[in-house]
């Protein structure tokens, strides 16, 4: 399942390094991280990691699967 997670602020390269499994882009003062998540546990683990780094998640959505 593909997810997209928006975080307030532009994350530094160092912090982005904490999410090696995700791609990222910076858009208008926000960092958008996206990529395939293994399962729901992975999702909750990610959210806990954002929280423990003091990051504010502003949006979270599941992307439609790309047709093969």
């Amino acid at each position, binding site marked *: 399942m593909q997810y997209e997670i928006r975080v307030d*602020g532009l*994350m*530094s*390269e*160092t912090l982005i390094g904490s999410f090696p499994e995700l791609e990222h882009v910076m858009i208008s003062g926000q*960092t958008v991280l996206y990529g395939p998540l293994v399962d729901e546990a992975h999702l909750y683990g990610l959210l806990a990691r954002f929280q*423990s*780094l*003091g*990051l504010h998640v502003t949006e979270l959505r599941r992307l439609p699967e790309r047709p093969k």
Partner: protein
Amino acid sequence: MEDTGDELPRGVPLSGGADPLGDPFLRTRFALPGRPGTFLRRDRLVEHLGQALRTPLTLVNGSAGAGKTLLVADWAANLGQPLAWLTLDAEVEGPGMFWAHLLQALNAGGVPPPTAIDLPADATRVHHTLLSRLAWELAGRDRPVVLVVDEFDRMTDPEVARQLEFVLRHARQGLRLVLVSRTEPLLPLHRYRLTGEMTEIRDAELSFTPEEAVELLELHGLPLAVPVARALVERTRGWAAGLRLSALAARSSPDPELYLKEFEAGQGTIADFLLAEVLERQPPETQDLLLRISVLDRFCPDLADELTQRRDAATILAGLHRANAFVEDFGHGWYRLHPLFQEILRAHLRRRAPGLEPQLHRQAAHWLRRSGMLPEMLAHGAAAQDWTYMAQALVEDLAIGQLFTGLGAGEPADWFAGMDGETPDPATNLVRAAYALSRSDLDGGMTHLRRAAGQPAVDGRDSPAALLSRALLEALAGRLAGSARPGEEAIRSARELMPRLPSRLLDGHPELGALLLTHVGSSRLWAGRFDEAREALTAVTRGPRTASTVLPRLEALEHLALVDHLNGWPGAAERKVLAMTAEAQRYGLAPPWGSGLGQLVLAAVALGRDDVDRAEALLAGTPGPTSADPVVAAAARAGTARVLLARGRTSAALAVAARAVPATDVSPWAEGHAALVLAEAHLAEGRPDAAVEALREFAADQPPCTVGAARAHLAAGDPRTAVHLLDGLAAHGRSGPGVAVPAALVRAQAAALEGDPATARRLLAQALVDGRREELKRAFRSAGPWIGPFLAEPALRALAAGWLVPDPEPHGGPEQGGPGPGAPLEELSGREREVLERLARAMSTEDIAADLYVSVNTVKTHLKSVYRKLSVHRRNDAVRRARELRLL
């Protein structure tokens, strides 16, 4: 019995508590966190928090770095009454660990739980009675106990939330629970909100107002105008960590006020941006130290020095703490990083020194091992994937026994789960053997044990600790294989090895000796060497009573109970199982306890009392005849077969009794008891000669089989041989009433047959006296119809009244239908009982036949047999009689 031949050398038990993992409690978990000099007390929050004393539940909920902990710690410090504090961390995992720590927090806070509640000994589970007792005890207190659990978000097990809610509900006014958490706990908060039973402080309330920010920065030596503060609060969202970091960054800049005025995180994330700023302005040694210790949840200067390989941590940490930068003081020389900063620092570490993390974990593991902190050592060892080191530490520190006693199911396996491929060294093979054996995987265990034995030790010589660990595992493997020799060899080498080990090591691991003796005791029991088994097992029950030895002590008690039962002392056996249950509950263990042997013994005792339903119910909860432990398997086989016999299901009983229990050595009693079942089945079906044959090889040295054989001879019409056999029993002096009573009944019957009713009466009287003490009803009820007329005699009837037969009517009320006095009976078969039950429901013979899928004639045959056994002639009398005898 004062023989202590099997006591192993041991030292004084450790003082002070140990948690279920056998780890000395880290004081830091119970310490009220200190407040830095720059802490700003905010009255509005203190006032709100004051309501915590009036509501059962208080929730302080906020993001990382919102200032939750400091707020509650400051309030707690000024409360003026005892308070229990518990800070959770990743190692406090599972209900057992949680409740052990919670109880310890009550101790440390000066509001100790009653001594009747011992710490849970199993890290993964906790028994409900512990919770009920705790709640009940709290509810009875004059003033409520205030309990703070910090970082409750670490506890992700929903079971713990349920248990906490249970205790909170039932402690009523006795508990004020304050949960400090980043996330909402899984308690039914809506219910507490609805009834106004909850005080709640959340992120928005924790945020700093501009006025508060001015005060806070003043404490940092930074005077600030309110408008500047307002802008700062806006940028940081009033976030405590953000304000603190900006103060630190400002202070190290040439013009602090200008810095604060103009600081813009740009569009960066605040904490990350500010932390990078602050970090860069630290001297290189400080930066290096901060990055390296980010792999640790807590540390003291010495541990930090280990990671930096320098000797300056004490100075740097004290300086950082004075400057209120990153480091929090726990007291006792221990610190931790603020969790938020720790995470960010770790991200910096990964970026600046990729690949350094495993090495840091390895260094930490080394230090932790030297300091005796086993679980933390394993956690860091696994993070470093340094399996050899972990295994060697477990073996050389004599901690291998803890894989069986303390570490709970699953956890240790997880530590080595990341390991794949061949096992390179003897220590790792020993640890892997231990894992396999702890899961009763005998083949896997033996494979690794053999590999370990065949490998040369690293320095060419096996250490005493490695040899002792191997001895323990060999003893367990021998026990599971049903072989007595490995255990005896193991105990011999243990005696030789233990004096060569430092007593500090031995005293710290009482579970090792307890486990070894339990395995040896169990192997001896299997081999039928009851007295020697008892020696080893008694040494366990008399050994150190610590949480780490509770599991072997429970097992020793149930094995001792089995010895009592096999020797014919049901009452003593039952008392031992009850003692075991009490001990398990004291330590908050959740059932099933031990190996299931205790319950099997209780089932056997119930059957002896002719309580077949209870015996059956008890058996249902045991591992059964397929258990990997031969003693358990054999006891289950005998118990199951006997209950089936009692139910009249002869062929099913025979099938169970014929099932082999795989074992290297033959167990005389296990085989003897299987033969007894076979013999009883033959007797029940009228083949006494076959019964004699079945018991032939056991009759000489197995007292219960001797009695069984005598009974078979009697049934075959040979009272002389029967009595002759029983004469040999006297040699076995220690048989109890469980053997003596059935033996006396055979003699009595023989005497009656030979026309000597006086002797029969005397023997029967003695059997009744002995049997009454142990409630051995079944022996009398299955003795046969000959006993009826004797028990009808007033003298004997008096001895049987009240336990074996109903008490006589107080005023000699008329006994209707004249079925004679309530004599015990020849046992009804299962089919006869089924017919009788339907008779009681007023079903006709035809209905019963249809219901049971048998012919009317068959039902009539059963009815005749029932009438005969109940000494009645009519259906109504049969039903009434059956009710009197509680057959219905």
